[in-house]
């Protein structure tokens, strides 16, 4: 009987509880004596608080307590920023959990009400009177750095949160000597992640023990405990954080939130368990956003299309405060990826982090890498148009040739392995690219606006070597841990430090165990998400769980195998060197029928009646695995769109994703990650975007106003793959959770521009709404032709106050 399931698309073990309504998310949990918190949030983008009157609220039915910033000040410490990138003058401004004197964005917390039920708490919020003195606001990150812009923080002049520069080669020289320079201004609009489960926290405090427990919708319970300790002052070993079932995160559940700390504060004050769950409309302002860049980008090339340089000036909005990991996103995870899959000798990223009167920005699926891929692929298309070549041809001549064990790029990273031309060929063959172009030309003759976008990408994930994490200012390590524990009956618990929330690692990790030790997959239970039961780990984000956590698990299994070999040799009265292993069976070479199964070994190790001298009882191993490198998945994507010239309506006709994440443990899950990622990226290209008015009001503040992708708007996603193992981790795997989003936004964007180019439209701002497309067609009317990359280009600088 074979138990090997690595590489098999088996059904997920998570699903039975999820399809029957038996899973327990944070808001599903009830505790004896539970009371409910609701948070009053600033309706102003920027205002001074003159006074707050909570008396009527405190006297309202069911209300137990009302607290303001005056109550939490001195009890809760400010929220820390955990990614202070070095040599960048990071202004870690004060971030009080409840605002004290000034509110800096719509959604900033002003007071909290605790009542017997949620309805009473919401009622009481309306009885709180706050005397605000409105202050001027600024939303656009570039505008926020202009002289005379409203100032958010006294200790951050010009609203500059940081300034980070990274460079490789000599860009000045490359651009001075280029045959061709193309430029663009790219607005990476602010996005609102919208995991389907809103954020929620329950806190309970036992005064006699000094113990705080928080159930919380987080991607990283151990980091949440670490930060909770810093904010509440409760020692780390007295805090337990539990991530129960978590309904998606996409980066929005990385941050440790002030609201969870306020919930804990209420529980500590009242001695009763307190639950806080945001409404969706509250989520739009109180849970972190993503992207928000104003970018001036340019690419230098020879006349044949060979690229010699890339550089940027980026204004990256941080929102009103620095969220937990925010500064690392437009810098380390963005600027360092300007080479993508290409061989580019000269690169410079010049990035400003900027405070604005908007909800704080954090990681959002892809986090920095979609933006890097966007500018590279956008500029590649502009170079192609400028030199008069097919976009695929220009990409192909610039790709890094196939490599299997390390490749250094100009900006200082060492990619693990890649076959970029390989995936491109698979993609082109699958879509029959020449035929597509032929059909496109034929359609154009009949007035049909078909567009084709082809992108190549390489991204950095599987975060990451801890020494690098330290060097780039991340306030923790990025290793992972896994404990494997065999019981006497041969059943296994795997305890992991990461915290999956929809990615299916309970299944894939059981598959890893079955592969490593021949254990039936159903005999393995994977435990995660509880700081009291799992070993320390840094969480699930940055497509790192399978790469780093899976690596830790494989190494723990291999430690167990080593012990099992010693024990088998003892039981079989043979030399260790003569013991062979195959599919869960340990036997003396040549005698597989008289071996000991892993289950028999587990029984003996646990009862320990007959152990080799000096061997400890038990069959358990823990590994803290620190990867020697990041992982660098890659791929080539193709989008085909049709644009209706009469109304600007875009139909995404086809989307093809060819990705290489190394060996796939569960291809069904891999494909699912790609489907979802692609559609999220399509959301940015076509529909999504936070819109603020001049007063800092979020106009897209509900699911009515913020357009999320819907089933009837997207096609089936065609997924293909190649397999290039990473030489830098035990399983050879690479992350796949973000690749879809990283590639799809620009692939679809380029397809739309490709469709409109005959009409003279060469750039648009996202999202590509029918109105924007229609207006662009009208404005370009009669302006047919191509090669307008210079006409809309800008010298980068401070004189372009693009609104968005």
């Amino acid at each position: 009987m074979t138990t090997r399931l690595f590489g098999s698309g088996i059904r997920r073990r998570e699903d039975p509880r999820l399809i029957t309504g038996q899973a327990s998310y944070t808001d599903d949990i009830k505790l004896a004596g539970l009371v409910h918190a609701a948070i009053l949030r600033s309706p102003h983008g920027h205002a001074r608080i003159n006074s707050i009157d909570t008396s009527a609220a405190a006297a309202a039915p069911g209300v137990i307590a009302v607290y303001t910033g005056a109550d939490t000040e001195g009890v809760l410490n400010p929220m820390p920023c955990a990614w202070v990138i070095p040599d960048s003058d990071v202004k870690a401004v004060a971030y009080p959990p409840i605002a004290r004197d000034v509110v800096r964005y719509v959604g900033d917390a002003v007071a909290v009400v605790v009542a017997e039920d949620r309805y009473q708490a919401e009622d009481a919020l309306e009885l709180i009177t706050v005397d605000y003195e409105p202050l001027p606001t600024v939303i656009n990150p570039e505008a926020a750095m202009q002289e005379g812009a409203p100032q958010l923080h006294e200790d951050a002049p010009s609203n500059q949160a940081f300034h980070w520069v990274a460079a490789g080669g000599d860009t000045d020289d490359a651009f001075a000597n280029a045959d061709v320079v193309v430029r663009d201004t790219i607005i990476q609009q602010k996005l609102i992640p919208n995991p389907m489960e809103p954020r929620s926290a329950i806190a309970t405090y036992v005064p006699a023990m000094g113990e705080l427990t928080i159930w919380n919708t987080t991607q990283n319970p151990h980091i949440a405990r670490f930060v909770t300790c810093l904010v509440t002052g409760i020692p780390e070993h007295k805090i337990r954080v539990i991530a129960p079932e978590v309904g998606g995160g996409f980066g929005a559940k990385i941050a440790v939130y002030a609201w969870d700390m306020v919930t804990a504060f209420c529980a500590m004050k009242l001695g009763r368990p307190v639950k806080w769950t945001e409404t969706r409309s509250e989520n739009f302002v109180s849970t972190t956003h993503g992207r928000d860049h104003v970018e001036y980008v340019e690419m230098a090339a020879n006349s044949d299309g060979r690229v010699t340089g890339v550089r940027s000036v980026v204004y990256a909005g941080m929102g009103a405060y620095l969220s937990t990991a925010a500064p690392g996103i437009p810098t380390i995870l963005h600027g360092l990826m300007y080479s993508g899959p290409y061989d580019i000798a000269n690169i410079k990223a010049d990035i400003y982090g900027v405070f604005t009167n908007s909800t704080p920005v954090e990681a959002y699926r892809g986090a920095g890498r979609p933006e890097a891929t966007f500018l590279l692929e956008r500029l590649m298309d502009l170079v192609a148009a400028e030199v008069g070549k097919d976009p695929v041809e220009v990409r192909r001549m610039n790709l890094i040739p196939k490599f299997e064990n390390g490749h250094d790029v100009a900006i200082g990273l060492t990619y693990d392995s890649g076959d970029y031309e390989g995936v491109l060929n698979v993609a082109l063959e699958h879509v029959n690219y020449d035929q597509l172009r032929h059909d496109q030309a034929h359609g154009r003759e009949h007035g049909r606006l078909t567009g084709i976008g082809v992108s190549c990408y390489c991204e950095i994930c599987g975060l990451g070597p801890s020494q690098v994490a330290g060097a780039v200012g991340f306030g923790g390590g990025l290793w992972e841990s896994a404990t494997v524990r065999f019981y006497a009956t041969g059943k296994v618990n795997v305890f992991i430090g990461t915290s999956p929330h929809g990615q299916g690692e309970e299944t894939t990790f059981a598959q890893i165990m079955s592969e490593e030790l021949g254990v039936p997959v159903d005999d393995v239970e994977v435990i995660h998400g509880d700081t009291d039961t799992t070993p320390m780990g840094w969480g699930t984000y940055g497509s790192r769980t399978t790469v780093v956590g899976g690596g830790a698990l494989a190494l723990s299994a291999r430690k167990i195998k080593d012990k099992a070999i010693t024990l088998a040799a003892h039981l079989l009265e043979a030399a260790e060197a003569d013991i062979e292993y195959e599919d869960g069976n340990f036997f003396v070479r040549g005698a597989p029928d008289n071996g000991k199964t892993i289950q028999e070994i587990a029984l003996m190790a646990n009862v320990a009646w007959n152990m080799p001298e000096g061997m400890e009882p038990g069959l358990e191993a823990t590994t803290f695995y620190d990867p020697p490198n990041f992982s660098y998945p890659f791929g080539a994507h193709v989008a085909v769109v049709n644009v209706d010239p009469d109304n600007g309506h875009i139909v995404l006709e086809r989307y093809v994703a060819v990705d290489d994440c190394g060996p796939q443990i569960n291809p069904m899950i891999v494909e699912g990650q790609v489907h979802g990622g692609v559609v999220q990226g399509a959301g940015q290209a076509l529909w999504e975007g936070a819109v603020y008015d001049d007063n800092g009001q979020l106009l897209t503040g509900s699911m009515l106003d913020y357009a999320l992708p819907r089933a009837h708007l997207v096609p089936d996603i065609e997924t293909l793959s190649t397999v290039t193992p990473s030489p830098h981790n035990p399983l050879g795997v690479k992350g796949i959770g973000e690749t879809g989003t990283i590639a799809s936004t620009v692939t679809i964007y380029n397809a739309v521009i490709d469709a409109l180019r005959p009409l003279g439209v060469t750039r648009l701002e996202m999202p590509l709404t029918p109105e924007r497309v229609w207006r662009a067609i009208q404005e370009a009317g009669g302006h047919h032709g191509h090669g307008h990359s210079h006409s809309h280009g800008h010298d980068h600088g401070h004189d372009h106050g693009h609104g968005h």
Partner: protein
Amino acid sequence: MKVPIKLTVNGKSHESEVPARQLLVHYLRDDLGLTGTKIGCDTSQCGACVVRINGSTVKSCTCLAVQADGADVVTIEGLAQDGNLHPVQEAFWDNHGLQCGYCTAGMIMTITELLERNPNPSADEVRAGLEGNICRCTGYHNIVKAALAAAEAISTGAGGG
């Protein structure tokens, strides 16, 4: 003000006194402990809270508990019969029609009704039928695949339930 209501939920009758303003979803979740029905928004957009009332799909966040007085309500907890998954549940499991699981109850409830109305839908008809349900994880690909597989299973009698 409390109002008496009498209704059947998943085949079991309940008599309760509920606040006039209480939403059905809160009655199901908080009073009856049926937390399989989720709340994903507050503008009737996402469909995580979809239940069946007298056979029709209803967003239980946009319905008062008192409006369900006298009704026959089915939630995700009431779908499997005698320990056998409903064919739509089985198809979601087989086809990886869910990731985080938060939209899943609403998706499954919506599709059960869709397939009763249209036992042999096209992919486009499934997509159109899901207009009122949002999923952020799957890109809908495998949800559509699951719905089509469920239709096939029901029509050939291969499924349970």
